[in-house]
């Protein structure tokens, strides 16, 4: 009998189901990638990320599935790393809780991210490619998008939980990922992750090193969300108990040792971290130092390695002086300013800000040019998404300052020269509250608006204002900014969003938010997000003011410190990749 041809042989043995699916999926993925490649324009031609060998661009369809990746990220800088040293951070805002699923303040994130890992890690090379979010691997050693609704993650095989009761050093498995994702999309009203993880339909752990996630609809932001700072993987033994707020047991580079309220948190090196050889630092001490003067003095005295801030609170001239007076520091300067966007947001359910005209009076009345100067001259207009990101609006999209129009809006809303508008802004002393409020107070004077500043305690502000209470009129501060429009906008502006602190409802915004969520094509999604942002700017539940320039100084000895650009204060820094050069005589 003649040798069977391929197709004859295939027909004889029959097509196995798995083979069919894999082949079909590969074909489908390749087809979609081709389509995406054609239409993604500038995005697909971006240089490969320098952070991590498996970095890919988030917000697009994944290219053909990769082969299994090596565990260590191939960052050449790490070849020179040395072991040892204690790293001191002065944190302005004390963590509220170490459970990042429920608290995402900068202090909470900074502390917990030393101890916990994520499936994927957000990485960004803002010098080469500002605004593009690369995602590289962490607990997932590789991932592929099997089809529009399904993602498969291969997990690292040697990760272990920290050897602390009640978890006791057991191996990390796919069940832990399933538990954490189910927790993040749960119904606990305290969750900050709910809206972002809600599109997940189910999570399966077919074997201890594989996780398969299926979404209900196509969800373009899924990979970005999986790499977000608060998507930490937690052990159920701890996370189901009340201890989860004050204790942290993770798989991460540092072990949580203790937390003295109002004083400091201590962390030790994890000798069994799955990235062998890392971390390089022996200890991390995170001190709680709300006072800027104290942080400055500590930095000058050599007690901390990193220090910085923004004008007007810290003028650039002061930073220059300090840098010149200390021979052992480098400057890490931001050129862009898409970091924290200063803003005012309003309680839209109560007078006077339930009236859109009053909110728009702020939009048209504020003197943005002055504010840009006061914030150091590096600043630019702020928008719902940072202007420097691929999603950002352009300066020309924003209305220009028009005091006459602002006054007319106020008059139409019933506020005249005899009965002027007087409002109270409720702030905390953190997050640039006092600086932004004082500046806003002054720039709104020509419009005839009087703003009284009510400064309340830090945690009270988080719970009563930032998380959306009813007992405030407005607030003004520097918000952290987000890398993906779904993360940045959905939870805050969807009528059902879990972080809708302005209580804003708009069927039009809801529709656009849901639409962008399911759009994988980058250009198409950009268009929807643009329309959404223009709507939000006009409806003004927030009035975005200016993004601030920030400057940072770091000790020369402290190596490989990289600043994140997007959402700076709220992103974790890669402390596991940092080390100290040995002192000259040691």
């Amino acid at each position, binding site marked *: 009998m003649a040798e069977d041809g391929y197709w004859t042989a295939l027909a004889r043995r029959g097509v196995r189901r798995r083979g069919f699916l894999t082949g079909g999926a590969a074909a489908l993925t390749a087809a979609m990638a081709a389509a995406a490649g054609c239409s993604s324009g500038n995005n697909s031609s971006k240089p490969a990320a320098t952070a991590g060998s498996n970095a890919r661009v988030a917000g697009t369809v994944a290219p053909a599935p990769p082969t299994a990746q090596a565990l260590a990220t191939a960052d050449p800088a790490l070849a020179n790393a040395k072991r040892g040293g204690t790293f001191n951070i002065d944190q302005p805002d004390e963590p509220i809780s170490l459970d990042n699923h429920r608290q995402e303040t900068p202090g909470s994130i900074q502390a917990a991210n030393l101890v916990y890992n994520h499936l994927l890690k957000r990485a960004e090379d803002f010098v080469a490619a500002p605004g593009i979010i690369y995602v590289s691997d962490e607990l997932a050693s590789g991932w592929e998008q099997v089809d529009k609704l399904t993602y498969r993650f291969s997990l690292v095989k040697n990760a272990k939980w920290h050897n602390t009761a009640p978890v006791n050093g057991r191996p990390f498995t796919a069940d832990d990922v399933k538990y954490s994702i189910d927790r993040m999309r749960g119904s606990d009203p305290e969750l900050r992750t709910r809206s972002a993880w809600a599109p997940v339909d189910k999570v399966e752990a077919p074997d201890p090193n594989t996780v398969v996630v299926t979404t209900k609809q196509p969800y373009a932001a899924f990979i970005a969300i999986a790499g977000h700072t608060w998507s930490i993987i937690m052990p159920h033994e701890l996370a189901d108990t009340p201890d989860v707020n004050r204790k942290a047991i993770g798989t991460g580079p540092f072990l949580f040792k203790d937390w003295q309220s109002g004083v400091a948190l201590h962390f030790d090196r994890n000798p069994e971290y799955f990235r062998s050889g890392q971390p390089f630092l022996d200890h991390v001490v995170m001190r709680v130092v709300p*006072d*800027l*003067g*104290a942080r*400055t*003095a500590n930095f000058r005295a050599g007690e901390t390695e990193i220090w910085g801030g923004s*004008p*007007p*609170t*810290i*003028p650039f*001239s*002061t930073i220059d*002086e*300090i840098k010149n007076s200390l021979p052992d520091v480098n400057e890490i300067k931001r050129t862009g300013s898409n970091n924290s966007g200063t803003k005012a947001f309003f309680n839209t359910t109560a007078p006077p800000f339930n009236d859109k005209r009053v909110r728009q009076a702020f939009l048209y009345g504020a003197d943005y040019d*002055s504010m840009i*100067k*006061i914030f150091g001259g590096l600043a630019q207009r702020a928008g719902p998404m940072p202007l420097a990101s691929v999603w950002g609006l352009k300066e020309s999209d924003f209305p220009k300052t028009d005091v006459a129009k602002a006054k007319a809006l106020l008059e139409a809303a019933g506020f005249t020269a005899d009965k002027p508008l007087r409002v109270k802004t409720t702030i905390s*002393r953190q997050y640039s509250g*006092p600086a932004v*409020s*004082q*500046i806003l*107070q*002054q*720039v709104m004077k020509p419009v005839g608006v009087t703003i*009284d*500043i*009510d*400064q*309340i305690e830090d945690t009270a502000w988080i719970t009563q204002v930032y998380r959306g209470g009813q007992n405030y009129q407005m607030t003004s501060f520097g918000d952290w900014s987000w890398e993906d429009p779904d993360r940045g906008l959905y939870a805050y502006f969807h009528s059902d969003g879990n972080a809708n602190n302005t209580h804003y409802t708009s069927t039009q915004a809801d529709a656009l938010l849901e639409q962008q969520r399911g759009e994988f094509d980058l250009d198409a999604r950009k268009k929807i997000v643009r329309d959404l942002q223009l709507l939000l700017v006009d409806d003004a539940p927030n009035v975005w003011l200016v993004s601030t320039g920030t400057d940072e100084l770091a000790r020369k000895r402290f190596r490989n410190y990289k600043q994140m650009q997007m959402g700076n204060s709220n992103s974790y820094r890669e402390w596991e990749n940092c080390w100290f050069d040995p002192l000259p005589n040691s």
Partner: protein
Amino acid sequence: MATAERAARDDRLVFAPDTPATSIVSWPLAVARFCRRKPLGAFGGAITLVLIVMAIVHPWIATHDPNALNPNEVLHGISGRHYFGTDNYGRDVYSRVVYGAWASLEVSIISVAIGTAIGTAIGVVSGYFGGAVDMVLQRVVDAALAFPGLILAIALVGLVGPSVKNVSIAIGLVTFPSLSRIVRGPVLSIKEQPYLEAARSTGANSLRIMVRHILPNITAIIIVVVTARFGTAILVESSLSFLGLGPPPPTATWGSMLSGDAIYIMQTAWWLAFFPGAAITLVVLGFNLFGDALRDVLDPRLRGRA
């Protein structure tokens, strides 16, 4: 006559009438005599007067709106346009010092008024009635005195929130206890005087006696103590503002101008610290010198107290 006695007599003669037959004191003459005998006190009084006048006319002598931001003039030094330079928001330091005078004066007047009213009332009632009333009231005063003053003020303001009103009340509540003690002493001796017996026998009730007979006799003490208290009140207000418990931003008060956030800027922009600091120093010095001299003149027996 021994030197000390002569000095004491001379002091008291500041307010002596010109001729034995006249019982009306001529004020301009008294002031002139005061300046001659107590030059330091007069100097203190002059500084105090300058502060009060400056505070009252602050809208007219300020050169700029103290809260107006000026992004083009951040951290400029002393100049013809900005007598005391500008801060990191571009605000004029001179105008902020001048407005701060008013804020400080407002707080010190209100707090001293509250402290004096409560302290005097408690001291007089306590001393006059004696017995159980005295015991209870003085135990209350003991409890209040047990707290370090500044800590108590911080706690009070922390509880009710920072504002000019709350800061004034807090400082008043912190200062009344010691005043009540000081007042109580003389009241105890005065109430034994025979003319009070006479007043009582004509049917005067206790309140009338306290107000018409006792109070005028302790006025001198109160004036002396109160004058010194102004200085303390300004210091306490500065401390509270420095700690962030004063009136909310951007209100200019001398203490908040010295406060933590600007400390690291002051190492080069020295004018940010110098002028508010000098203002506080001068004013407190002035009140203290004036108060000392006044005390010597009105009642030297108080030397070493208050």
